[in-house]
């Protein structure tokens, strides 16, 4: 499309629009509430552009199938929710180790276990970071409204290609199922990152796991001139298994450094009324909507409350948080879990004693009133 | 089809693990293990070039080279 298109959609559909805009051409998935609409919409839309949709036999198979399809040079995605995200972890770790670009959407619902399938939660934040075994880094993005869901989905594809890594998009049930306006920008309005392919010619030794000077690793599509090995074992620059201590040490450092050393380039956030804020609300996803609503109303009454809305949760934007929370009388982390981001905020700020949690974990969206009640306590105005 | 004539048994001593499959199933008892437990062609003159040793070798360590092969190359 060559001009902006206005739609009234669910968040899951905004995600699909973002994926199509980014150039998705392969999706594998398994039905699970509250993410199923992503699969349903792509089942209809992908073949219309010659892309492929496949419903696999389970969550694990879906994750593995997108990895396989990424290796043939395609932009790939799968979507799931808590239980499915748990099942995908081993294959997700494989994608980290083998450095395969892919996007994994987790529309969060209440957990643990089957939990609260049709209700909102943000309980998978730490799982997105630490769900797999072993050390590695990962990128996780999130969004509080449909325009941002669209933008973050495009970003997720871009970052996956840039850093040769899986990128997790942490949405939640409220954002996923709510309907609101989405403007799909015209083609070219948001830059896209395409697969970086090697320029090493046929017959010349190609090293799929040898980073360039800028840290990026050009790929070669399966089916192309370069036949190389991909494995989940520690491997040398040809992708062949190795347990040489130097190789193991080097690869693990590379997997962490390629992301942690680029934290500034990866970090995404928004500031709402932060100028001179005495009370800083740190929030993300649908929780941020209530935080922003409260801050907007209080600002109108002259109270100095602002919101730091995180749009990337991993790598954790520690320096940003430390900076924006400096000098605040109190920092309130607004989230729908038992304080998963709050703990990291405490670790980031100069004065962890001033960090508080405004949360809700009963499957209901946290409201401005919920936050207001906590603020009253902090401000010494009673319960 | 011309009858195959043996040129040599090309045995990769680095790859051979001395399992003895080729020796046991050779219809003409051409092969033997040497003192290093590697296969050698002890009686190449008896070889009928059936290539079963080559086909079954789990180490891909033996190749029966024949004149026929050379012409094909």
């Amino acid at each position, binding site marked *: 499309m060559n001009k902006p298109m206005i739609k009234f959609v669910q968040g899951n559909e905004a995600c699909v629009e973002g994926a199509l805009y980014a150039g998705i*051409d*392969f999706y*594998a998935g398994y039905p699970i509430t509250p993410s199923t609409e992503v699969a349903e919409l792509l089942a209809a839309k992908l*073949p*219309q*552009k*010659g892309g*492929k949709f*496949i419903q*696999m*036999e*389970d969550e694990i*198979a879906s994750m*593995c*199938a*997108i*990895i*396989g*399809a*990424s*290796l*043939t*040079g*395609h932009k*790939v995605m799968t979507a799931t929710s808590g239980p499915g995200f748990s099942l995908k972890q*081993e*294959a997700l770790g*494989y994608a980290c180790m083998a450095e395969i670009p892919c996007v994994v959407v987790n529309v969060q619902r209440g957990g643990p276990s089957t939990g609260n399938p049709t209700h909102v939660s943000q309980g998978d934040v730490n799982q997105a970071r630490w769900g797999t075994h072993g050390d590695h880094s990962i990128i996780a993005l999130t969004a509080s409204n449909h325009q941002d869901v669209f933008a973050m989905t495009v970003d997720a594809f871009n970052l996956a290609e840039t850093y040769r890594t899986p990128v997790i998009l942490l949405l939640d049930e409220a954002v996923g199922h709510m309907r609101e306006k989405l403007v799909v920008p015209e083609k070219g309005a948001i830059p896209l990152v395409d697969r970086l392919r090697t320029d090493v010619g046929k017959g010349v030794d190609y090293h799929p796991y040898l980073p360039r000077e800028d840290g990026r690793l050009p790929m070669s*599509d*399966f*089916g*192309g*001139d370069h*036949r*190389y*090995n*991909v*494995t*989940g*074992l520690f491997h040398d620059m040809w992708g*062949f*298994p190795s347990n040489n201590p130097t190789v193991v040490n080097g690869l693990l450092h590379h997997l962490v450094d390629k992301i942690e050393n680029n934290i500034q380039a990866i970090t995404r956030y928004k500031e709402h009324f932060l100028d001179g804020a005495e009370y800083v609300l740190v929030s993300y996803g649908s929780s941020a909507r209530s935080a922003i609503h409260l801050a907007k109303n209080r600002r109108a009454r002259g109270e100095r409350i602002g919101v730091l809305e995180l749009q990337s949760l991993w790598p954790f934007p520690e320096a940003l948080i430390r900076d924006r929370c400096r000098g605040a009388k109190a920092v309130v982390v607004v989230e729908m879990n038992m304080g998963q981001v709050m703990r990291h905020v405490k670790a980031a700020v100069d004065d962890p004693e001033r960090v508080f949690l405004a949360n809700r974990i009963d499957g209901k969206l946290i409201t401005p009133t919920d936050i207001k009640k906590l603020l009253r306590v902090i401000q010494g105005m009673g319960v | 089809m011309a009858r195959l004539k043996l040129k040599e048994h090309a045995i990769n001593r*680095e*790859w051979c*693990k*001395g*399992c*003895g*499959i080729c020796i*046991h*199933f050779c219809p003409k008892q051409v092969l033997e293990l040497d003192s290093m437990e590697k296969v050698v062609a002890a009686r190449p003159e008896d070889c009928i070039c059936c290539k*079963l040793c080559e*086909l*079954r*070798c*789990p*180490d*891909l*360590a033996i*190749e029966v080279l024949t004149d026929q092969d050379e012409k094909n190359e």
Partner: protein
Amino acid sequence: MSVKDYLRERYFPHMWCPGCGHGTVLNSLLRAVEALGLNKNDIVMTSGIGCSARISGYVDFHSLHTIHGRALTFATGVKFSKPELKLLVPMGDGDALAIGGNHFIHAARRNIDMTAIVMNNRIYGMTGGQFSPLSGLGKKATTAPYLTIDNDFDVVELSRAAGASFVARTTTYHALEAVDLLKRAIDHKGFSVVEILSQCPTHFGRKNKEGDAVNMLELYKANTAKIGSKALKENPALLARGIFVDENRPEYCEEYEKIIQRATGGKK
């Protein structure tokens, strides 16, 4: 081309034990690929985890050594996204039918064009000799010190029931037959399964008093017979070898092309 042209020679000698049948499966598979005259760039081999899975490192194809039990799902992603590629998926018995059993039946059900090779040594070798779903009753393993009480799958019947359109069985003793069956399986359009009985002298053979590799091959020779043979008719207790299913059925990637035609109104 000779067989060696399909190998990554720098990684030899391979890591399998002396007398391990998996090397013979590799040997047969390369001969089948050579006989078909396939281009190395057109072949993708995906494997899972275990002794069997290491096969993908040794071949000079595009190779994808994945996670335990999931080789067919990665292969599905590769094939479905680029149907012109030839997919070879060697798996161990535990890999294919225990942890990967669900993927196995579903890949068969879809009839997606790839060749699954079950390298059946009836044991988990890499972890030191535990029983597998193909060990069968009354076998000794490190996790069955008092003998197994687990029934085994019949790979041929399971594949047939799940919808595989080509199903064959042979052994590492019958190497020429293995080459021929693999050739036909790779050439087959649809999901093809070749079960190859492959000796594990280190674990299965030793624990079950089947002797060394040579002796285990003698047992394959004595205990199996070709479908339709006189030997099988006279002694139905023998394990049948040969082609059990060979049918032309709609293939998954081709069927999806029709979906694309429908979705685009024939414009694609």
